[in-house]
C-alpha cells in the first residue's frame, strides 16, 4: 500500500514536475529574452537622465526621435510606433488601469487630443516659448495649449485621374460633386479611415454656415442643422453612385487600375501626392474645391509626467516646431506623412505641394465634432457605405 502510494505520488510529481519545469524554463528563457533587447542595455551609451515614452503613428517618427536622441544625450525617448487606433486603445486601457505609462502622443487629427483634454488626461500649456507659428499653425492651436499642431495636411481635395476624366467637367465646389458622372466619385469609410471623419464633419459644419475655427463653439441648433444638411448631401452623392472603399489604399487603387473603377475621390490629398511622387500614378492629379478640411497632426503630453519629463517633452516639442525639426519630419517620410504643410514660418513644404492658401483649408472645432464621431460614423456605415 505504501509502495503504491509512493509510486502514485512520485508518478504524479513526475508529470506535474515535468510540466512545472517546462513552464519555468519557458518563463526564464522568456524573462531573459525580455531583458535582452531592452533599449537601455547597450553599455556604450551614456545613461539617460530622463526617459520619455512617445506613442506615435507618424511615418517619420522614428527618424525624428533618432535625430532628437542623438542631439540630446540627457534625454532618451522610447518610441511606441503603432496605428492611431491601437495607440488610443492602449492609452485608454492604461488610464483605466490607473497607471498610465504613456508620456506623449503624436498622431494625425485633433479630435483625439481634444478628447484627451476633456478627459483630463493631458497637461495644458505645453507650447514651448519662441515658436514662430505661421497661419496654419496658429489656426490649429487650442487656446489652453493642451496640444500643439506639428504639421497640417488637408482632406477633401479632389484626387482624380487625368485620363479617366478626359472630357469631364470637374466641379469647383463640393456642391458640384453631385453633378459628376454616375459612379465615378469615391471616398473612404470613416469607420476605417482616420482622415475621413474630419472630412465629413467639415462638410457638415460648412453646410451649416459655421465659420472656420478650431476654437469658436457653434450653437447646438447649428450643429444639428449641419448634421442634417451633411446627411442629405451624402445621400445625394450616394444616389449618384458614390463608391465607398475602406481606406486610401483601395480608393487610390480603384483610380490607378486598368480599367479604373473610379475617376475621382475626395480623400486626404497627401496620399495622392505620395502615389504621384512614388511614380505609382503618372496620370494622377489633385484639384482643390471651394474648401478642403484641415487635418493637423498634434502632440499632447500626459498630465502624469514628472517635472523633469515635462521639461524634456517641451524640449522635444520645441525641436519638432523648429525649422530643423520640420525638415527632419519631411526627410523621415518624403513620400508619405512628410507631405505636410509646415506650421512655422520659414520652412517650405515638399516639392510638388501647392501653397497652403490654395487648398482653401477649413478648420473645425475638435471639441465640438470629436464627441459626435461614433454617431456619425455609424450613420455613414448604415446609410452610405456600399
Amino acid at each position, binding site marked *: 500500500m505504501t509502495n503504491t502510494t509512493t509510486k502514485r505520488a512520485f*508518478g504524479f510529481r513526475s508529470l506535474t514536475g515535468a510540466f512545472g519545469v517546462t513552464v519555468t524554463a519557458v518563463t526564464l*528563457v522568456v524573462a531573459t529574452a525580455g531583458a535582452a*533587447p531592452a533599449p537601455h542595455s547597450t553599455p556604450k551609451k551614456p545613461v539617460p537622465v530622463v526617459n520619455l515614452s512617445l506613442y506615435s503613428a507618424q511615418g*517619420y517618427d522614428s527618424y525624428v526621435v533618432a535625430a532628437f536622441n542623438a542631439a540630446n544625450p540627457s534625454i532618451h525617448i522610447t518610441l511606441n510606433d503603432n496605428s492611431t487606433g491601437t495607440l488610443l*486603445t492602449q492609452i485608454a486601457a492604461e488610464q483605466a488601469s490607473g*497607471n498610465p505609462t504613456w508620456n506623449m502622443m503624436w498622431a494625425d487629427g485633433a479630435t483625439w487630443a481634444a478628447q484627451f483634454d476633456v478627459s483630463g488626461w493631458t497637461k495644458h500649456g505645453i507650447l514651448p516659448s519662441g515658436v514662430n507659428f505661421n497661419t496654419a499653425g496658429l489656426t490649429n492651436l487650442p487656446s489652453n495649449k493642451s496640444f500643439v499642431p506639428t504639421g497640417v495636411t488637408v482632406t477633401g481635395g479632389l484626387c482624380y485621374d487625368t485620363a479617366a476624366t478626359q472630357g469631364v467637367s470637374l466641379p469647383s465646389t463640393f456642391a458640384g460633386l453631385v453633378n459628376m458622372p454616375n459612379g465615378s466619385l469615391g471616398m473612404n469609410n470613416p469607420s476605417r479611415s482616420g482622415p475621413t471623419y474630419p472630412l465629413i464633419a467639415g462638410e457638415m459644419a460648412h453646410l451649416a454656415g459655421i465659420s472656420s475655427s478650431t476654437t469658436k463653439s457653434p450653437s447646438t441648433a447649428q450643429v444639428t442643422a449641419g448634421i442634417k444638411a451633411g446627411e442629405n448631401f451624402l445621400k445625394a452623392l450616394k444616389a449618384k453612385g458614390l463608391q465607398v472603399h475602406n481606406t486610401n489604399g483601395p480608393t487610390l487603387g480603384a483610380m490607378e487600375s*486598368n480599367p479604373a473603377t473610379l475617376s475621382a475621390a475626395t480623400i486626404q490629398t497627401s496620399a495622392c501626392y505620395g502615389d504621384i511622387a512614388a511614380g505609382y500614378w503618372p496620370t494622377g492629379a489633385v484639384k482643390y474645391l471651394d474648401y478642403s478640411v484641415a487635418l493637423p497632426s498634434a502632440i499632447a503630453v500626459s498630465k502624469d509626467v514628472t517635472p523633469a519629463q515635462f521639461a524634456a517633452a517641451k524640449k522635444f516639442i520645441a525641436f519638432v516646431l523648429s525649422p530643423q525639426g520640420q525638415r527632419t519630419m519631411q526627410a523621415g517620410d518624403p513620400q508619405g506623412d512628410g507631405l505636410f504643410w509646415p506650421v512655422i514660418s520659414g520652412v517650405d513644404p515638399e516639392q510638388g505641394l501647392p501653397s497652403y492658401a490654395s487648398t482653401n483649408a477649413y478648420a473645425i472645432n475638435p471639441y465640438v465634432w470629436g464627441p459626435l464621431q461614433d454617431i456619425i460614423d455609424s450613420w455613414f456605415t448604415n446609410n452610405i457605405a456600399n
Partner: protein
Amino acid sequence: MNLQKKIPPRAHRIKWSGMVLWLILGFLVIIPVTVFLFAAVSPRFLRVGPQWFTLHSIGEAFTGYTGRGIMDSLLVSTTVGILATSAATTLAWLVHRTTLYGARIIGGMMWVLLLIPTWMMTIGWTNLIMPGELATAFGLNTVHLYHAFYGPAGIILILTTAALPFCYFVISAGLRGLGSEFEDAARVHGAGLRRTLTTVLPIIAPALLSAFAIAFAESISDFGVAFTLGANTHFPMATFTLFNAITANPANFSVAAVIAAVLILCTVPPIMLQSRVTRGRSYAVLGARTRSVRRYSFTPVRRIVVSVATFAVLIVLTILPLVASIATSFTRTISFETRTGIHWSTLSYHNIFSPPPSIMSLGSGLWMSNQLGVYVASGTVVLAYVLARRLASTRGGASQRIADVFLLGSVAVPGVVLGVGYILFYNQAIIANHVISLYQTMPLLVMGLIASAAPGQSRLLIGPVSQIQSSMAESARVHGAGRWRTWRTASLPLLSRTLTWAWVLTFTKTISELAVAQMLLVPGHEPVSVIIETTLGTVFAPIGSAATVMVLAEMLGVIIVVLGVYRIVTPKGWRRIGEVGSLR
C-alpha cells in the same frame, strides 16, 4: 497517526494538480478577461464611468448596430461551423478512406491553408478579384464578384476556408485511429455507402463535434475578416462593433465588455451539445491493436472526376489567392494592372532589406517574431496537452465541464479583448509598482500569445488524446512502469506527431498574430506582423505585400525543417503508429 491515512493520495493529487493548472489559467486568461468584462456592469471599477453598478451598457449593446452585429456573428459562425465540418469530413474521408489521386498532397495544402491568417487571406482574395488586379489582367470582369465578396458571402467563404484545416485535422485524427472493422461490420450487414457512413461517423462524434465547436468559436472571435469585409457593408459583425467600441474616442469599454461576454457565452450551446452527445460513452478507438483499413475503390472514371473536382476546389481556395498575393508583390504599383501596363519589379523585395526611413526594420521584426514563436509554441504545447488530457479524462465531473466551457469560451475571446484585459490587470499600479512590472515587456507578450493560442490548441489535441485507449497505460502500469515512463513509452509515441504539428502550428500562428501583438508589443521591438500591418496602410503597401510573401515562405521553411528533424530523430515506429489508414 499516519498522515497518509488521513489524506487519500488520489484526493491529494487532484487538488494539487488542479490548483496549479487553474492558477496558471487564472493568470493567463481568467483574471485579465474577467477584469475587462467587469466594465460591463461596473464602469467605475475601471475608471471609465461614474457608476459602481449599472445595466445600461447591456441594453446599449443589444440595440441598433451593435445588436445586429451580435445576431450577424451568430448566424455566420453557425453557418461556418456546419459548412467547415461537412467539407472537412468529406475531405478527410476522401483522403483516408478512398483511392483518391494525390491524397497525400491534400494534407500539405491544408497546412498551407492553416498557415494563412484570415487577414492575409482577405488580402489575397482582394488581390485576385478586385477590379484592376490579377483576374482583370486575364480579361475577367470581376466587378460583381468583388462587390459580393465584400459582404456575408465573402465573410462566410473566408471563415469557412480558415476553419477547414482545423476541422480537417481533428476529423482526420479521428478517422486515422478508426480501423475499418466498423465499416466492414456495417457492410457485412448489408449497409450501402451512405448507411455505412451514417453508422461509422457517430463513432468519431467527439472529433466531429470538436470540429464544429472550434470552427464556431474561431469564427465568432475572428476579427480580421470582420474588420476588412464587414466594415464596408450593411453586415456588421460583433467583433467589428466591439473593436469600434474599444477604439472609439473616448473608448466605450462597457459596451465592448458586454459584446465580449456575449461572444463567450455563445460558445456554451455547442459545448453543451457536445457534452450531451458524448456523455457516458467511450470513443477510445486508438490502441495497440488498431488494424489497417481497406480503402473504398472508385471506378477509374469516377476516381479521376472526384480527384479533379477536389483539387479544383482546393486550388481555388488555397493557391489562387496566394498566387495573386505573390504576383502583386512583384509589381511596383498599387494596382496589379495600370493604364501603363503591368510593371514587374523586385524593388519591394530589395526594400525589405534596405527599407525607407519611415518603415521599421522588417529583418529585426522577423527575428523578434521567430523568438516569440519558439517561446509561445513550446509553452502552448505543454499547457494545451495538459488541458486536453484533463478534458479527455473519463473521470471528469463538474470541474471537467467547467474547464471545457472555459476553454471554448476562451477561443471565442477576441485578441483585442485579451490585449486590453492584460493592460487593465497587469498595469494596475498596485501590481506594476509593488509586485512586478510586466506591461510592454517580452514575458507579458509571450503570456498573452500563449493565452491566445492554448485554448484552440487544446481543443485540437482533445481528439487525438481522447482516442488513446486507457488499456495501454494500464498495461504499462501493471507491468511496473511509473507514470512518467508510461507516458513516455505508451502515450508519447502515439502523440508525438500530433504534438509536433501543434508546435509548428502555434509557431506559425504566433508569427502572423496581430491583435495581441499590437496591444502588448515591446516598444522598439515590434513583431513582423505589426510592421507589415503598418506598412500595408501606407504608400509603401507593395513592400508590405512583399514582406507578407517572405513571412509565408519563412513559415513554410520552418515547417519543413521541424518535420524533417522529427523524421530524423524519431524511431520509425513512432511515425507509423496512429496512421494505420494512411498506408496502402
